[in-house]
């Protein structure tokens, strides 16, 4: 087949054979990877600007630099990660529970909301240079002396739409898990809830230890479903907090537009910070860690075809992580002297330490499950899974180090935090895990479409892995030498590290281009358009008997 033909038609992809569930999942996946590319390009622009500030499009202007820095995490975390994770889970829950998704319409609403919301936030930064950064520290987002008030309103509306889409996702997941149809036809809500929170795993462990039969009850929900449910609890709280903060900011901005000038100091900055970090931390310490652990368990069982090692411990660990994730936010406030010392010590330092244990356990359980199934074939999904495990192996200890009252005094707000911890956790840990999920779901979502090139897949893997670990390492080293995050250095400070980090960032952009080329050459431009056309088959399940059309198309 000629290159041009391949570009138009793909390998053997047929968009019209897809069900409604497959289509809505693929739509969100496509949007997610487009936003990922945008975030990667924005990140690279900032990296390059730190090497040579006068380079276009930033031209040495802090306003421009910081407006990019403001939307970069919004695009990366919400536009890309949220979309990808939500898409995968709205497909996986029906797949794992063998029940239909509660609503395909709602699933479509979710990706549209997140896409429009992320785009609005981006536009606010692009047109009005609105730049309070994602931390939204009070009263910066409502500071109309520095920022255009219209830009602020557009930004906040964008974030609010993302959160409304998020609530739609949560409703869809809960309604699907608790629907009493199929395998759950004769389960009570109580049984499903006990399983969802991991309480049955804890009870099984207690019964085993105290010798009280029956030692082990078959849980109502499979382990990955438990992890998704558990993570969704945090996503819900987090959405409420960010929405709440957004409404507060919006009230002040609207008051400003109407000519009233309300006293921004009526809101206590430290109290607001506590509220905001409690919610925002649920994205990082709640959602990412739990969703990731759940994805590892799912991937390990799918790749090996065997039961998970120490399953009850894994379930109990998810319950433990629930309480841990709610109580760790003070590690973001260790340099805030107004924060009570006891809070810093207990929440910020002691409880945060448990994340090493919960995450270390998830890592161990996944590795053991893989090891027991030796020998395994080194497939793409296994490769990505191992890289994902490595990412968290590097990033979680990096976080524990800065969540220390002594270390935080010299690491707070430095590039160490954003490089060695955040970027390694997200780019190496989370994205490699998500790519593994993508490779596992690929045949199911595309009805066994042949991947265009394995060489491309491998090139993407190595470029992304080396680029992400390398960038995190060089940013981290600069941080140890005092380089601040959220700062635009214009006099060639930390030049060596910044050049190396910029090279690593460019590697990741190249990796993304290769990945996208591989996907587009596989599905073809026609197929890509076809994904967004309405589905003729409105099936909302995957791979179960009453919908023979799906099964048939699977077997073709």
């Amino acid at each position, binding site marked *: 087949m000629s290159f041009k033909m391949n570009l138009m038609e793909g390998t053997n992809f047929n968009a019209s054979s897809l069900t409604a569930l497959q289509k809505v999942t693929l739509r969100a996946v496509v949007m997610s990877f487009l936003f990922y590319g945008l975030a990667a390009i924005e990140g690279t622009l900032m990296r390059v600007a730190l090497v040579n500030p006068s380079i276009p499009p930033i031209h040495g202007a*802090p*306003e421009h630099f*910081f407006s990019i820095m403001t939307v970069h995490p919004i695009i990366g975390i919400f536009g890309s990660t949220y979309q990808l994770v939500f898409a995968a889970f709205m497909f996986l829950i029906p797949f794992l529970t063998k029940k239909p998704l509660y609503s395909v319409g709602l699933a479509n609403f979710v990706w549209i909301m997140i896409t429009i919301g992320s785009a609005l936030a981006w536009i606010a930064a692009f047109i009005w240079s609105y*730049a*309070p*950064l994602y931390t939204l*520290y009070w*009263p*910066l987002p409502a*500071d109309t002396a*520095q*920022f255009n008030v219209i830009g602020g309103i557009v930004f906040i509306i964008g974030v609010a739409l993302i959160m409304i889409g998020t609530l739609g996702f949560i409703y869809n997941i809960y309604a699907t898990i608790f629907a009493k149809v199929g395998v759950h036809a004769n389960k009570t809500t109580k049984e499903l809830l006990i399983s969802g929170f991991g309480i049955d795993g804890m009870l099984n462990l207690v019964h085993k230890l105290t010798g009280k039969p029956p030692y082990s009850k078959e849980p109502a929900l499979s382990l990955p479903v438990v992890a998704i449910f558990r993570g969704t609890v945090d996503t819900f709280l987090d959405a409420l907090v960010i929405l709440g903060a957004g409404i507060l900011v919006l009230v002040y901005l609207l008051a400003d537009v109407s000519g009233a000038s309300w006293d921004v*100091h009526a809101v*206590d*900055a430290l109290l607001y*910070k506590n509220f905001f970090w409690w919610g925002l931390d649920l994205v990082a310490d709640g959602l990412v860690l739990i969703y990731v652990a759940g994805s590892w368990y799912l991937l390990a069982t799918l790749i090996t075809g065997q039961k998970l090692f120490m399953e009850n411990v894994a379930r109990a660990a998810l319950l433990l992580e629930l309480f841990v994730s709610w109580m760790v936010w003070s590690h973001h*406030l260790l*340099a*805030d*002297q*107004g924060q009570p*010392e006891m809070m810093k010590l207990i929440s910020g*330092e002691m409880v945060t*330490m448990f994340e*090493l244990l919960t995450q*270390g*356990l998830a*890592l161990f359980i996944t*590795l*053991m499950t*893989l*090891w027991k199934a*030796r*020998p395994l*074939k080194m497939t793409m999904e296994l*490769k990505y899974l*191992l890289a994902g495990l*490595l990412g968290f*192996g*590097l990033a*979680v*200890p990096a976080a524990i*180090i800065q969540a*220390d*009252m*002594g*270390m935080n*005094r*010299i690491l707070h707000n430095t590039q160490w935090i954003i490089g*060695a911890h955040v970027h390694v956790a997200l780019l190496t840990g989370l994205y490699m895990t998500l790519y593994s999920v993508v490779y596992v779901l690929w045949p199911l979502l595309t009805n066994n479409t042949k991947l265009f090139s394995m060489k491309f897949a491998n090139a993407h893997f190595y470029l992304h892995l080396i680029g992400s670990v390398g960038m995190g*390492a060089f940013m981290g*080293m600069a941080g*140890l*030498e*005092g380089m*601040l995050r*959220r*700062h*635009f250095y214009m006099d060639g400070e*930390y030049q060596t590290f910044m050049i190396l980090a910029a090279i690593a960032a460019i590697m990741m952009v190249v990796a993304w281009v290769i990945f996208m080329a591989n996907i587009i050459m596989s599905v073809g431009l026609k197929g890509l358009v076809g994904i967004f056309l309405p589905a003729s088959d409105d099936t909302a399940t995957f791979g179960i008997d009453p919908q023979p059309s799906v099964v048939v198309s699977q077997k073709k």
Partner: protein
Amino acid sequence: MTFETSVELLKFHNVAYTVYAMLIISVIAWFAYNLTREKKAEPIVRIPFYLYIGFLVAMGVGHHIFTYNTIPWVSEDIMRHNITPDKTFQIKMANHKFDMPEKMEIKKGEKVLFDAHSSDLVYGFGLFRQDGSMISQMQVNPGSRNDLLWTFNECGEFDVRSTEYAGPAGNAMFVKKVVIVTGCDKKGA
């Protein structure tokens, strides 16, 4: 081991984390290599894994507890309300500007309190060496107490920079050589 200044601590930390990173990368690489080999899994292989997990926990938790007792400023920070400082400097911040003494002169070993107040935005107060490395810092929130008690164990001229983002104008919040510490035996030590 005790750490007198942040330079020593950061150096130690740099080496410790690099060693750890190399270790975990090689463990995963070793694991991946063995995963595809024909040989059937033996129960004995569990031992290195338990060791590995034990190592992870010991490293993470250990680093924590270990540094807690060796970093002098932690206990001082927790007890700062009961300590009478030798010197106090008032730092006022507003409109992306520092309002503080032109020169803050300090003798090595003195306990100095930096008492910062912001009347508008959230800022940061950070002390830096001439090579750009950080001595210490705190957040400065409007409406709450922001007091950093610090004992300088090193001499030299130090810069003050805002370490928290407060809008693009905050980038210029940088005052050179405003803190001067003297009284060291050897020059610069």
